[in-house]
């Protein structure tokens, strides 16, 4: 059975829903970018880009990505269970995103595929990982989700995985009507997940590595510019540097 949204909904309705989702994402990302700008992330990045060579920049970025994503250094250090559930959700989401992209590229007409097709295998592994991580966090919802939007995010991630599997099995065994409703629920939950992403904990996947990277690059740029002449003087990273900025700020205030 082939699933085409246009068989069930008018094209203008689908376009409108997509546009609303994109507007939500754009507004949220703009809001988050303003927050990051306040912290000085972009100033640090610009300073680093100005002072460091492309090779140093690329090495620092790759090293930070490797350290945080592959080695997961500094990512949940307090509990192995929590770390596993977190990594399971992260890997699950990435695998599902890869599977969706592959489907979009290689199966643009959304024809039925065998369970042995590459996107199916990747997507199913991703879905299982999402479910495993989702169960852990849903069971500890009251502990880890401090804001209602974060609970919504956790629930949506779980719903996406459940409805994804539901659609898959309904296409094989169920009727067209059931498949259609589950598929609609899947798409709505994906759209809601992406539209709410900048406002929920989802955004930390971008924000936290970006902040850490900006600090690392800023340190390198400061060394290069001579502002941090001897790194040994700053054993606590940029803390001493921030303190110097505070004193400079006070002196500027006195001068003005």
């Amino acid at each position: 059975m082939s699933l085409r949204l246009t068989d069930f909904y008018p094209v203008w309705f689908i376009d409108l829903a997509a546009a609303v989702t994109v507007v939500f994402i754009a507004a949220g990302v703009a809001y988050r970018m303003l927050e990051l700008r306040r912290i000085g992330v972009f100033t640090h990045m610009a300073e680093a880009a100005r002072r460091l060579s492309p090779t140093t920049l690329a090495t620092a970025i790759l090293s930070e990505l490797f350290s945080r994503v592959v080695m997961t250094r500094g990512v949940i250090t307090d509990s192995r269970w929590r770390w596993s559930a977190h990594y399971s959700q992260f890997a699950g989401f990435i695998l599902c995103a890869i599977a969706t992209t592959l489907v979009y590229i290689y199966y643009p007409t959304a024809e039925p595929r065998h369970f042995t097709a590459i996107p199916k295998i990747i997507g199913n592994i991703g879905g299982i990982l999402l479910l495993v991580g989702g169960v852990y966090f849903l069971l500890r919802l009251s502990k880890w989700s401090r804001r209602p939007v974060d609970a919504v995010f956790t629930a949506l991630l779980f719903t996406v995985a459940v409805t994804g599997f539901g659609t898959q099995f309904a296409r094989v065994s169920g009727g067209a009507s059931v498949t259609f409703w589950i598929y609609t629920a899947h798409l709505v939950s994906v759209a809601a997940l992406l539209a709410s992403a900048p406002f929920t904990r989802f955004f930390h996947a971008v924000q936290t590595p970006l902040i850490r990277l900006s600090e690392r690059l800023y340190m390198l740029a400061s060394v290069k510019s001579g502002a941090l002449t001897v790194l040994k003087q700053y054993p606590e990273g940029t803390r001493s540097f921030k303190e110097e900025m505070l004193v400079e700020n006070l002196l500027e205030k006195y001068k003005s």
Partner: protein
Amino acid sequence: MTRLGMLIDLAYCIGCNACTVACKQEQGTPPGVMYARVLVREFGKYPRAGKIFLPILCMHCEHPPCMKVCPSGAITRTEDGVVLINEEICSGAQACVTACPYGAIFYPDTLHTYFETPTPFEEYHIQRRRKFPTAMKCNLCIQRVRDGKDPACVVTCPTDCRIFGDWDDPESKINKYLRERRPVAEPFPLRPDAGTRPKVMYLPDTYAVKRVRWEVELAAERGGAV
């Protein structure tokens, strides 16, 4: 609405670090972690050299960047405006350490003590912590404040340059001090460019202001830097 905060009159700070020690005693922080500290900067040249002292601590911002970036939601702001870290929830991402423009958040990797064998005092504070390592920062001595006392650094300051109170209460110590002792001076925050709206504000040291401006004028006359 209560907005607990602190006013620091830089005219009276003598850089004695009594606040630093009092804070360490009250909070039992490990070596290398100092919530309240005094920054010192010398300026000018002999015979007109001078020193400025800048006591700093967590600014308990109204828009705390640390709270916004925490992926675990471990940093919260209480109704009276005190920014706190929930040790149980902190996952150790350290985004807050980077995001804080005041360098007020610490993340000690190892719980080392000052002595090879921890003293009973250190033992007490090690056991008191629910989890380690976590991000750590000044909690404005919330345990003392809720008992009706002032924070340890405020009580200890020998020159009373730290004034604790509610910014919104006209009869609080802060507002009384501003009215009665420094009616002309305008409290200012540190790093206003960060847009964090800190609740720890400073009053200028008028003597240091004169000295710094004098140095600037002299340097301009000579065509050099201060």
